[in-house]
Structures are given as structure tokens and as C-alpha cells.
């Protein structure tokens, strides 16, 4: 029961090997597979779309240039996300001239959470979404990022730690804190509505 995560597939590893020997098709495969996800991830750090695209460009140019010396990362996705994250943080820090370059910890991460439309519609959904959004906005950037990586990208705690450059223990801690914070900040009424909606979904 522990190992239920879907196997990312042999083909990705084959493409990675092939990319390292300089196969343009495999390189493009990696781009096609990851560019949209990276763009969405990058958007959470900065609203500057051109900056995000610049970072994606730099990331791919970089890995192509040093393709022969790159190792075989255990998870290709993590490797790309991590390198991309570093690029973005560096770039945004450079843009904020008044901040020191080492201050990579001080970043923004903005996520919007929505409740699935199928569950509840109209005013109620807006209201609950509002509450959820408000609670989320009170989390720190790290907490938000961990939640995003866990629930949206479905990374494991080990993988979150790798991407964010923290220990596995710290990634558990961050998640536990943010979840209990969310629970405390959502009213009983919100939870009740969610309950009902959930039951309705089960019945359908």
C-alpha cells in the first residue's frame, strides 16, 4: 500500500538518456512535457509572465548546454522544478534591488484555491471560496508552496523537500502547521456546507 504512486514511466528515463546524448527530439519531449507545469508553478512566484518565460528558456538552454555532464536525477520532474525555482528566486531577487542577493528565503507565493464547481454553485461557493482564500492568504509563502506542491503537483514529502531545498522533516512540519491553521480558520459552517456538498456528490 505504500507504493501506490503511479510509475512515471520508463519512456521518460529513456528520453532523458537520449537527450543527454544530444537527441533534439527527446529534448523537445522534455519541453513539451514540463513547460506548461513550470509556467503555472512560476506564476505563483511572480506575476511577471515574461520573467517566467525567460526562466523557462534559461532552464532549457542551461540543461542542453551542460547535458553531457548532467547526472541521472532520480526524479526528472523534481530536478527541473528545483532548478527552475532557483532561477526564478535569483531573478526576482535581482529585480528587487534593495534586497540582498542572499535573501532567497523572502519570496512571495500566491495561490488561488477554488472549490470545485460541481460541488456547490453560486453565491455559497463564492462565499466558501472566499473564506478558504482568506485563510490561505494568511499562510507563509513556504506553507503555500508546500501545499501547492503536495496537492496540485502531488509530490511526496521527500520530493517537496528536494524541490524546496529543505529537510524531509521540515516539509512534514510545514504541511502539518498549514493544515491545522486552515482548519482553525475555517468556520464550522463552512465545513458543514462542504460536508453536505460532499454527500451530494457521493449520491450522484
Amino acid at each position, binding site marked *: *500500500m505504500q507504493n501506490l504512486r503511479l510509475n512515471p514511466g520508463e*519512456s521518460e528515463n*529513456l528520453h532523458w538518456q537520449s537527450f543527454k546524448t544530444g*537527441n533534439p527530439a527527446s529534448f523537445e519531449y522534455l519541453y513539451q512535457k514540463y513547460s506548461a507545469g513550470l509556467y503555472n508553478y512560476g506564476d505563483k512566484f511572480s506575476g511577471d509572465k515574461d520573467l517566467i*518565460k525567460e526562466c523557462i528558456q534559461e532552464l532549457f538552454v542551461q540543461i542542453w548546454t551542460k547535458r553531457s555532464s548532467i547526472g541521472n536525477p532520480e526524479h526528472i520532474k523534481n530536478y527541473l522544478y528545483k532548478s527552475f525555482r532557483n532561477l526564478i528566486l535569483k531573478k526576482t531577487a535581482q529585480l528587487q534591488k534593495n534586497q540582498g542577493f542572499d535573501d532567497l528565503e523572502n519570496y512571495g507565493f500566491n495561490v488561488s*484555491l477554488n472549490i470545485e464547481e460541481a460541488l456547490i454553485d453560486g453565491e455559497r461557493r463564492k462565499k466558501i471560496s472566499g473564506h478558504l482564500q482568506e485563510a490561505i492568504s494568511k499562510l507563509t509563502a513556504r506553507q503555500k508552496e508546500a501545499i501547492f506542491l503536495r496537492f496540485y503537483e502531488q509530490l*511526496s514529502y521527500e520530493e517537496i523537500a528536494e524541490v524546496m531545498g529543505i529537510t524531509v522533516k521540515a516539509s*512534514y512540519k510545514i*504541511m502539518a502547521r498549514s493544515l491545522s491553521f486552515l482548519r482553525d480558520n475555517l468556520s464550522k459552517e463552512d465545513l458543514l456546507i462542504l460536508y453536505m456538498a*460532499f454527500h451530494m456528490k457521493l449520491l450522484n
Partner: protein
Amino acid sequence: MKKQLTDYQSFTLEDLINDESFMVWVTQPNDELDTHWSSILEAYPGLAPIIQEGREIIQSMRFETEVLDAKEQKELWNTIAAKTTLLDKPIKQIRLWSRYAAAAILVGVLFASGLFYSGFRQVTIQTPYGQLQNVTLPDGSLVTLNANSNIRYDKKWGENQIREVWIEGEAFLKVNHLHKEGQVKNNQRFIVHTGALDVEVLGTSFNVNDRRGRTAVALLEGKVSLGLNTTREKPIIMAPGDIVEYTGGKLNKKPVNVVEYASWKDGKLYFRDVPVSRIFDYFEDIYGYKVKVDDPEILKRRLSGTMSSKNEKVFFETIARTLNISITPDHDSHELIIKSN
């Protein structure tokens, strides 16, 4: 490594959220996980509220996605390619071993993709002369295939696969509309390939006719975009009621009564001032006869009217009477002898 049932006894909400299998169960449930979690619930009914709560937390996590649209993605790729793969000229000195390694990997990739595609074999359906056939596509979309036509498509359509069919002859399609809102995903797209045209569809019923070097698409409802598959010109967007005809390298849009146009599927044909030569072409396409006309003047006449095409004999009779000619099928030579009375 497998967790014992008793491990769950004192589970807290945090434990649940941290549990890999719980997360997968909520987001991508399957039978095995359903069984696993129902047995836990049965053993420890006390866990029900936190399981409920855990599910809600995970399920309510709908993050807004910032979409990189296809055009931007392509442009960005072009920039990257220009700085990378396009820059690298073919490497002149490849050490032998790395050449072998590359070849071995390529074989590996080919082999892997061969395995992958063997599960997606194609289906081809060909109708004989004089017979229609209804076909249900893997997604439930409906196709009525006219006589002497064929359709080809993948047996299964994957989760992230564009729905594609290849049609020769004539077909009426009623496409299952999968796209509701937001960015159009691959599996919500539906493309019909004909000899010269690609018809891209979003939930629609329409008629495709691809015969004699002429392709015509008639749209009854919904929206389709239509592009030549040879050029990169802008596709034409069709509205209900439009017929677009492709002939002699040109696309022409013209308003016709499209319901009449696709009526063959119900065994009826409408003609509005149609040249008789066109009707004879139809006899050849649908019934497989070679038409022999003794008086070419007949071909220049025009015909209007509704007739039933369900029965070949009755259909020929009706036309013969209307035009005051005789139509005699010769079943041995597959010729249709047409004489003016």
C-alpha cells in the same frame, strides 16, 4: 512495508493527509484503494469524521492554473530551439562508443514506443455499395457512414489523446461534446481528416463528403474549424447552416439547406436545381454503377424534388419518371444504361 490495519487505529487528520495511499485514494480512486479504505472504516468506524474531513481538505484544493497557451508555448520553444538544438551542427567527431550507445538507446525508445502503440490498433470500417452503416466511436460519438465510404480510427482513445478519424467517401457525424469550459484539453478535441481537409470539431453534427477530388463539409449544429492539411493558412470557422466546399485548391463557403444536405442518412434525398450529371455521379459513388448515357443533353438538365433513396429500384424509377428517361441497371457489367424516351 505494508501498513497493518491496526496502524490506522489511532490515526489523526495529519496522519491521514500525510498518508500516500489516502491522497491517491481521494484524487485517483481505484477498486483496490476503495476496498482498502472501506475495510479500515469497517474496523474503525471512529475514523469516519476525520476521513471525511481529510477528503474535504484534499478535494477542496482546486488551485487556479495559469495557462501557457499553445501559441506561446510554441514561440518559447522556437526561441529555445534556436539557442540550442538548431545551433548545434551535426557533430562531426563522434567517438564510436557513444555512437553505439545512441543507437542502443534509440532502439530502446523505438521498442518501448512499439509496445505502447500495439495496444492502440486501428479500426477500419468500409461500407459496400448501396448500404449505410451506423458506427459508434470509442467516445460514444455517432457516425452514419454512407455507401461506398470508409472510416478509420484508433480502437481506444487515450486520456490525453486527440480524437481523430479518417474518412473517405461521405459520413454524417454527431460528436460528443466534451469541452465545457477553460482551456481545451487534447482529449476534448476531435479532428476529421479527409483527403485535403482537416475538420476540427467542438461538439457538433455535420456532414463530410470527400469524393471525386472535391470535399464538402456541411455543419448542422455546433462549431467546426476547417483547414487545408497541406498549407498553414488560417482555418475557416463554420457556423451552423454553412457548407464549405473544397475543390480545385480553393475553399468556398456557401449557404445551403444543410438539413437537406445530410438527409441521405435518413434515406431521403433532396434536390434543388441540381444538374443531372451530379445525380449520376451519385449513382456511381453510392451504388457502384458506371453510368452510360446515350444522349449527353440529359446531363445538362436540372432536377428538383425530394425522393426516397432507401430502395435503389424505387429511387431509379422516380428519377426516370421525373426526367422522362429510362434507367436500366445491367448487373453483369455493373453499368447503368440511360436512354431518353
